[in-house]
């Protein structure tokens, strides 16, 4: 029974999606001007390499994030050990470090004078050259370290919510702990794993920071180079179109698999309590987690502190530095709040009226995430100048670009929490005489509060770190921390990049705290 009733909710959702699709329209428009001959040249010269690079990178990063994320999530959710709460914190902290900072730090650390480089030489001598990052494995390492936290978060949440009865039943039937993990726990985690790997893949496809610092030719970097080095907007748009196609294919496949996997369990089941770790286990747990933390958090933070101290000593941190910090937080706050609000109608429309229209709305709203930041910025500039020029050059234009970029994060997490909205509860509200709006305020919103908070935090953290669109769209003289990091790092002024990176981490902490508190409360 496919009914395509749109209604007022659908109209609002449609408007949101239409705005989110502005950059896509720009891409369609520009690539329509590519003639067949130039398409042919793109296909034969550029695309095979770009497909190969982008896909192999995505696969490697997924593998890395899978191993790091699931192992740490399982250990932390199922074992109780000294420092467990600290471990949770350190596992999500990499979310606060942008990929270009990761790439930059590791290329400095692996330099023959850097900490890791000199350690390597001291250990292996000159016989084995210090590994460098300028290849698919190096980039994959960086992106896996920067994104495994998404897997950790979602899988950890699923593990803490999961029900004791199924695993106990398996044990009663004689399964070994290993068998339980592979046959029961892991399959039950499939939706969480799929969703988190989807987020990881989207981050890989849209990453600009790491690939541009490490010069690894993926779609985003190639699009950027076509656009800015050669002024070839049409070729850039053509490549963007292919990238959008690739990402949508992936998203549709992922949704298809996810929609067939629903697991229900009775609400009364007892939750699994983490088992206290034995002494031997404790050593192994901290050895494993410690290594992950060392690479993903401790080394980068130590580097930032070291250089920040150097900058402080040389009195390079001036008053304007606090201005950059305030700018960054203001923009991220506005973008996160706006995205949280505008994602509501899109998510609600899809949950209430599952239809072809709602499904395509969701897909269209995902486009922002996969289009490279510079393309979004350019599309928006073109649109604003043509249609609504007073907005151009203002903070609002930048906020709009960030909302378009990160809307999918908000829609995804709000939609996930709306799945729990049982129609009966809302119907009960209506029966008791609440109008649709009152029902929304008093019944629906309180029920999905957790999802909205997560949406806000995810967008806030990504908006804090956002670089490519901000570089192009920010108001004149309005510098954010990522912009400063990028400017200073590109001029090899490391002592000025480090304090900005450190500030970014500090600014993300409250947001991470909100999210972690929400998770703890939902348990």
């Amino acid at each position: 029974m496919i009914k395509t009733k749109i209604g007022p909710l659908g109209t609002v959702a449609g408007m949101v999606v239409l705005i989110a699709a502005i950059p896509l329209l720009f891409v369609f428009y520009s690539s329509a001007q590519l003639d067949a001959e130039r398409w042919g040249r793109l296909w034969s010269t550029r695309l095979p390499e770009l497909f190969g690079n982008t896909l192999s990178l995505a696969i490697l990063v997924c593998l890395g994030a899978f191993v790091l994320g699931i192992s740490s999530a399982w250990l932390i959710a199922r074992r109780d050990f000294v420092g467990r709460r600290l471990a949770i914190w350190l596992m999500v902290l990499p979310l606060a470090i942008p990929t270009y900072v990761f790439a930059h730090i590791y290329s400095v650390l692996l330099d023959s004078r850097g900490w890791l480089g000199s350690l390597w030489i001291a250990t292996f001598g000159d016989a084995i050259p210090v590994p460098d990052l300028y290849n698919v494995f190096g980039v994959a390492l960086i992106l896996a370290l920067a994104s495994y936290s998404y897997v950790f978060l979602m899988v950890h949440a699923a593990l803490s919510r999961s029900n004791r009865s199924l695993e106990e039943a398996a044990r009663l039937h004689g399964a070994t702990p290993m068998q339980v993990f592979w046959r029961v726990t892991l399959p039950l985690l499939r939706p969480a794993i799929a969703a988190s790997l989807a987020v990881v893949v989207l981050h890989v496809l849209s990453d600009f920071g790491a690939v541009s610092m490490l010069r690894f030719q993926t779609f985003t970097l190639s699009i950027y180079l076509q656009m800015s080095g050669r002024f070839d907007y049409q070729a850039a748009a053509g490549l963007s179109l292919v990238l959008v196609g690739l990402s949508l294919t992936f998203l549709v496949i992922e949704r298809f698999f996810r929609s067939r996997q629903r697991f229900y369990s009775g609400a009364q089941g007892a939750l699994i309590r983490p088992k206290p770790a034995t002494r031997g286990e404790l050593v192994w747990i901290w050895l494993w987690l410690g290594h992950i933390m060392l690479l993903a958090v401790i080394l980068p933070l130590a580097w930032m502190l070291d250089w920040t101290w150097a900058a402080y000593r040389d009195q390079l941190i001036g008053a304007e530095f606090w201005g950059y910090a305030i700018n960054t937080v203001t923009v991220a706050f506005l973008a996160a709040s706006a995205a949280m609000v505008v994602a509501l109608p899109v998510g609600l429309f899809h949950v209430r009226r599952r239809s072809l229209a709602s499904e395509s709305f969701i897909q269209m709203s995902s486009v922002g995430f996969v289009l490279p930041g510079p393309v979004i910025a350019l599309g928006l500039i073109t649109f604003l100048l043509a249609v609504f020029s007073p907005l151009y050059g203002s903070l609002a234009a930048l906020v709009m670009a960030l909302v378009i970029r990160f809307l999918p994060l908000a829609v995804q997490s709000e939609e996930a929490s709306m799945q729990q909205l049982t129609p009966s509860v809302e119907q009960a509200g209506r029966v008791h005489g609440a109008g649709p709006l009152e029902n929304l305020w008093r019944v629906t919103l309180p029920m999905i509060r957790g999802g909205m908070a997560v949406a806000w935090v995810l967008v806030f953290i990504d908006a804090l770190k956002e670089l490519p669109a901000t570089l192009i769209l920010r108001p004149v003289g309005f510098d954010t921390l990522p912009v400063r990091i990028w400017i200073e790092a590109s001029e090899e002024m490391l002592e000025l990049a480090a304090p900005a990176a450190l500030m970014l981490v500090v600014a993300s902490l409250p947001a991470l705290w909100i999210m972690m508190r929400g998770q703890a409360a939902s348990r």
Partner: protein
Amino acid sequence: MRYIKQIGLVLGLLAGAAGVAQAAGDLVVYSGRSDKLVKPVVEAFTAETGIKVTLHSASSTELLNKLRVEGARTQADLYLSNDAGNLEIGGQLGLFEPLPKATAESVDARWRAPDDTWVGLSARARVLVVNRQAEDVDFVKSIFDLADPRLQGRLAITNSANESFVAGVTVYMEAAGKEKTRAWLQGMKDNVGKSVFAKHGQVVNAVAEGKYAVGLVNHYYIFRYLNQQIKDTDKDKDVDKAHEAGLVKDAIRILVPDQGADGMGVAWNVAGVAVSKHSKHKDLAKKFVSFLVSEKGQKIFAEVNFEYPTRADVPTAPGLVKDIKVADVPMSKLGPERGATIDLIEAVGMP
């Protein structure tokens, strides 16, 4: 109720944000150079004239794109680029206002646009950095010797997306021909394999450590390195005097390639400035440019980054090599030929 208030607050903030007019200064400069290199001269200008200048920094190419897309709506009064190619492309796109003759002509003719749409502010040379201990490097006299198989695994270069690298290749292509340049790139590619550096500073460090024998860099990175060495070893020593007295006995030396009577000369590039065609403060902007090319302004530029002033009557920083033979390729070629250069680099497959 709480939600209504919260959402109302958010909407209010958004509306406020839309209306916020940036508290920009009197002049807005789209600057493609590091703030650290531009700020001293801007501060001197403001101190002298009382005119406030806002620097809007990003990469030169990106800002040119922005200027182009914005057209008449741009807020930029000036465009400052670290690469002559961008300036020339901008001039040809008609984005710039011609400068007054007097201002333009105070700069050496090699370092400004033929139609006076932009002027160079500071010049840099593509030179070689050589480790003093390295053996069998005496044959290196020309840029083209870098393709010699004797340098296999001993050559350090930046990746080929670097703006200075691209501009250098353009000059060699114009001066020595496309085929010779292609063969040169191919030879360098064979010599470096896949390991190239992201930054010029890393090239200099690697050569100083003896990991590589020769590196291809902009000249000022060598001087930045030497200066840092002096500062690290003796904090109180006067850097300029140390240079002049030849006190710097370091692991590396500078080699200016392609000199001599029949040498091609080194490749130059300049950082320069132009006035936006759509500026609403053209007079102020021109005043700023004339300050930048004045003796005072040029002196500041020469001092902050060991670059060559573009005015003949301003002395270079102490320690810099003087009287360099320069390849006979006008700066204006760097713009139109950039596309062809990138094609060549990509055809060879330089990393």
